[in-house]
């Protein structure tokens, strides 16, 4: 296993001295594994904690508790993460805001090379940046331009080049296509796939877009209100979803067919307030099949079939 995440918890505590102390439970005990060369799709509504999981795994956000093992090494409390940053990277949703507007592409993409001592001269760095730009489908001439001179799709290619510069083994893709046109989305997904094959990259692909996740993932984890509710291969999640929330998510996707009528509201209500999640199963207030037990007892994530995990009393 390249990456093992065990019982990851992230709470944000605010106030406490003069104001009332509030705890936002963004992530509540998430566990999963990731193999070399594998893509794990992480889906959920906004506010479900999926981005927090991605950033916590990279230690960009400090976990409240839980363990993160990367290449069998516990990195949960390593003080200096900088040497490890070479191995694990991130691509953000909005490439514009994730780049220093006063840096040129040569610096944006070249900094990881310099930081990790992968190049010995400026010239060598620029050569490597040119290669990277070409690999992600940009022109070598773009070296001395600034981020704002590019289109959204081009910028995301630059962000991918930056993430790949230090030749990492693991990349968190935080909604990398959500800000792009559909046609550009497809190009970026194709690029990500071919890079994965070429370099054996492992992806944690965070998205709310089920079609995109289905396209790129090997396995899919579904998150609801800070917890994983289902984790299985992409075929099983889309073929035989077991959790009522996964069911609802899939049913809420619009059919691209003229005969299809607008879907009825399959997931009524809204996700719970992460400051005061409901007792029992967090999904029970919206669940069509919830009963007394669901209101009282929180379901564990169980392996129903080999490789298919579900957190539901009714399965």
């Amino acid at each position, binding site marked *: 296993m390249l990456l093992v995440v065990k019982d990851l918890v992230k709470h944000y505590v605010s106030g406490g001295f003069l104001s009332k102390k509030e705890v936002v439970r963004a992530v509540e005990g998430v566990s999963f594994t990731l193999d070399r060369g594998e893509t794990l799709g992480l889906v959920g509504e906004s506010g479900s904690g999926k981005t927090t999981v991605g950033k916590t795994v990279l230690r960009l956000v400090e976990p409240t508790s839980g363990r993160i093992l990367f290449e069998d090494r516990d990195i949960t409390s390593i003080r200096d993460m900088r040497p490890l940053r070479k191995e694990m990277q991130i691509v953000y949703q909005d490439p514009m805001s994730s780049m220093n507007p006063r840096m040129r592409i040569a610096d944006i993409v070249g900094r990881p090379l310099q930081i990790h001592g992968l190049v010995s001269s400026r010239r060598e760095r620029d050569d490597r940046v040119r290669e990277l730009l070409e690999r992600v489908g940009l022109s070598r001439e773009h070296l*001395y331009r600034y981020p704002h001179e590019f289109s959204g799709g081009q910028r995301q290619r630059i962000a991918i080049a930056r993430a790949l510069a230090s030749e990492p083994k693991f990349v968190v893709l935080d909604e990398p296509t959500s800000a792009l046109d559909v046609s550009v989305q497809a190009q970026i997904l194709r690029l990500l796939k071919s890079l994965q094959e070429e370099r054996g990259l492992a992806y944690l692909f965070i998205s709310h877009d089920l079609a995109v996740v289905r396209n790129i993932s090997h396995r899919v984890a579904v998150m609801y209100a800070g917890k994983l509710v289902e984790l299985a291969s992409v075929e099983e999640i889309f073929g035989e979803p077991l959790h009522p929330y996964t069911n609802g998510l899939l049913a809420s996707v619009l059919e691209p067919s003229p005969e299809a009528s607008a879907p009825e509201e399959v997931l009524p209500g809204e996700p719970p307030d992460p400051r005061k999640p409901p007792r029992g199963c967090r999904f029970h207030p919206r669940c069509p099949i919830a009963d007394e037990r669901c209101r009282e007892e929180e379901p564990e994530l169980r392996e129903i079939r080999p490789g298919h995990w579900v957190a539901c009393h009714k399965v």
Partner: protein
Amino acid sequence: MLRLELDPATRRTLRRATKNRNIRVGGAIVAIFVLMGLLAPFISPYDPTQGNLRDSLLPPCRKYPFGTDFAGRDILSRVIWGARTSLIVSTVSVFIAVIAGVIVGGLSAYVGGWLDEVVTRIMDIMLSFPDILLALFVAAIVGPGLENVIVAVALYNFPQFVRIMRGSALQVKEMEYVEAAKAIGESNASIFVRYLLPNSLAPIVVHATLRTAASILTAAGLSFLGLGVQPPIPEWGQMMSDARTYLVTAPHVWVFPGIALFVTVLGFNLLGDGLNDVLNPRTEV
């Protein structure tokens, strides 16, 4: 290949700046003021410190376009040399305050925690003194003189730059590219220098211009009170102070340095407002 190494944000800003009327007018006044200060030895018709007592308190005439003061010194020459004094005092003191303020304010915001708490409280205390009182206090302790005026004015500007830099850096610190910098393995020092500083400086530029105007006034005020630049160095505030005795009988003695002071401060304020429009587009109407 030779290229103009300016980043696009700066280039766009420069383009907008040349079209702004406040910047044009203010810039022109400031340019005249700076030139006057720099070229004082070449353009002033007389020695500003040597007077001819027989020509004491002459009104403006052909020989002395601005008239003379009680010691028979040419007021035009003294106004020109006074620009040099004001230029030195204001730019040096603002420069010191900017450098110190940017470092202290930036670190305070970036490091956060107790350091930020302590710095902010100290700056609050310093800022709670009415503007000129702090400078007056310092000048009274260290005594009069050009260097001491610079120190006093720098000290009174310092907390303002700390506060502005801190606010600006706090904003930039939350930008995603700062987190992205951490993600690629940048050190804290590198994040501070390469990401935080260059993106936090715009409000500092505006404020530095406005504080230059205020510093000229403060320095003149200190000199007026006798705590600033000492004779025989020509200084506008001090010239006006000397003229109090002849307020009515020889008004030209205070009118000309007064006008010079007024126009210069106006120029810097216009320039500052214009820069503010250009650098912070949100406030543009």
